[in-house]
């Protein structure tokens, strides 16, 4: 429920100014300018920092988190895929992505699903353009809002790659990204966050992108993992992570960066951001410990990868709930979600035998679904949440479920189409020899470690 973006206001100012200059004396121009909200420097600075924190989550946070989990021979391919996907998502975002997600409304009946093309190439946006926040008459520079949202598009695309590492062509991923962004990410971002979006109108709660980013990316990763097929030697050869040290470094960067992701989604430096901040601490802490506890209960040692996975599960869980829960609710949500994710990746996935290589679905998909549904529960004032006194939990659960199911269906279908296009253009998978040799040498001509 992030950027209640008021397009009318942004357009109204230059239009009114032009009119005033043509028809009215200078005094009237000054008066018009005085009633237009001016961005607060504190809000602006916080949103700039938040934007960079989200970038830090991807480069190098997710690169190291994912990179450490693959075999030595594929380390660079993972880092390059994530880096290039991020660059591509950024360019897509300013060329047409922002317009389709947050631009002025598209004509009916498309309004709930996508915005129009009026902001193609960021047309009409300048340093003085502003974006609305959740508080009346509080605005931030529109360029900052565009950058903030741009990093969300980039990280969502990057998470999808976690399902299909170590076997898909670099070129296939670039084609996939070009199709997947407009077909899947942009409509879902619009539905959840734009004022005219389907889920926004329904009143779905998604503070920082549990649906848009995590369920969406997790489901897309699962679909892609099934379509791309298993890695050679899956469940036979050892595919142990090549450096859990790097994975844990990445985990730390993800957690720190996530404060930009969650607390930044308040769009202001205020109490709502503070609530999101404390929740992003405690839900994550609960998630980390809960995963370790689950490992003990199921007869294993409390592991380093378990700690990292629990931390990320907690972060995913608290994403939709960040500003929609009290701290105690967030602890419950983080802990329960981590246990659910543990069961998904350690018990269910090995039996189903699909190769979601880095558990993008098991953690982001399952964690996102748990978080989205759980948010309807922890939002209740009786559980310390910020919901209204007359909060109707069952009605909200229905809305959340509808948003979750729509996202799953949309992401599944769109991902299938994007994969079909990528397969037709590039063939999708590398050759058997290239996969055995490793994508670093076969696809990029380099080795990660020349020791």
């Amino acid at each position: 429920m992030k950027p209640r973006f008021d397009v009318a206001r942004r357009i109204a100012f230059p239009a009114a100014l032009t009119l005033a200059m043509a028809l009215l004396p200078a005094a009237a121009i000054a008066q018009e300018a005085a009633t237009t909200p001016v961005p607060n420097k504190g809000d602006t600075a916080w949103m700039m920092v938040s934007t960079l924190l989200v970038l830090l989550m991807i480069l190098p946070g997710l690169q190291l988190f994912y990179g450490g989990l693959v075999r030595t021979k594929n380390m660079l391919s993972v880092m390059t895929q994530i880096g290039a996907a991020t660059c591509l998502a950024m360019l897509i975002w300013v060329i047409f992505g922002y317009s389709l997600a947050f631009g002025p409304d598209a004509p009916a009946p498309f309004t709930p699903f996508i915005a129009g093309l009026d902001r193609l190439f960021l047309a009409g946006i300048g340093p003085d353009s502003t974006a609305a926040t959740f508080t009346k008459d509080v605005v931030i520079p529109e360029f900052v809002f565009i950058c903030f949202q741009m990093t969300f598009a980039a990280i969502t695309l990057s998470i999808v790659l976690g399902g299909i590492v170590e076997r898909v062509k670099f070129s296939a991923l670039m084609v996939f990204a070009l199709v997947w962004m407009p077909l899947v990410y942009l409509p879902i971002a619009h539905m959840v966050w734009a004022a005219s979006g389907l889920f926004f109108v329904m009143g779905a709660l998604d503070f920082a992108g549990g649906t848009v980013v995590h369920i969406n990316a997790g489901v897309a990763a699962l679909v892609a993992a099934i379509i791309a097929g298993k890695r050679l030697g899956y469940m036979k050869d050892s595919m142990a992570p090549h450096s859990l040290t790097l994975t844990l470094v990445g985990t730390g960067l993800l957690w720190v960066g996530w404060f930009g992701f969650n607390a930044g989604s308040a769009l202001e430096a205020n109490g709502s951001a503070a609530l999101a901040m404390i929740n992003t601490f405690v839900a994550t802490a609960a998630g980390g410990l809960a995963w370790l506890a689950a490992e003990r209960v199921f007869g294993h040692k409390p592991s380093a990868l378990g700690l990292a996975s629990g931390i990320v599960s907690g972060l995913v869980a608290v994403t939709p709930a960040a500003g929609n829960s009290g701290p105690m609710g967030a602890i419950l949500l983080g802990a329960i979600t981590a246990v659910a994710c543990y069961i998904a990746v350690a018990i269910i996935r090995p039996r189903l035998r699909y190769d979601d290589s880095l558990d993008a679905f098991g953690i982001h998909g399952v964690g996102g679904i748990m978080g989205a549904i759980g948010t309807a529960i922890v939002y209740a004032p009786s559980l310390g949440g910020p919901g209204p006194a007359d909060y109707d939990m069952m009605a909200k659960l229905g809305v959340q479920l509808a948003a979750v199911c729509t996202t799953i269906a949309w992401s599944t279908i769109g991902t299938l189409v994007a994969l079909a296009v990528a397969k037709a253009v590039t063939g999708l998978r590398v050759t058997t020899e290239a996969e055995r040799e490793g994508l670093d040498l076969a696809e990029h001509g380099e080795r990660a470690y020349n020791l």
Partner: protein
Amino acid sequence: MKLITAIIKPFRMDQVREALMACSVQGITVSEVRGHGKQLGQTEVYRGAEYHLNLVPKLKIEVVVEDQDALRVAEAIAAAAHTGSTGDGKIFVSHIGHAVRIRTGEVDETAL
């Protein structure tokens, strides 16, 4: 001359090296190797994916000593590397025919 080859647990390296110093053995070659004996490997678990590691990391120590020192040095290594659990390793003693010190050209016992 005898070649003493000892396969030991990596974390016993310091103790073994000290024991060799106490025996006045000055030359030592150490390699990182992998293998298994009766221990038959270890199990690793990553998010529920269990990998049986058949070949366990070990250190291989090689020293060459004069014939009369061989037994004493082998026993010193065995004492230093001993923990009492499976996977402690093995020591092999074999005959060496000829040795050369490259810098000086000295041969056999004087080369050690």
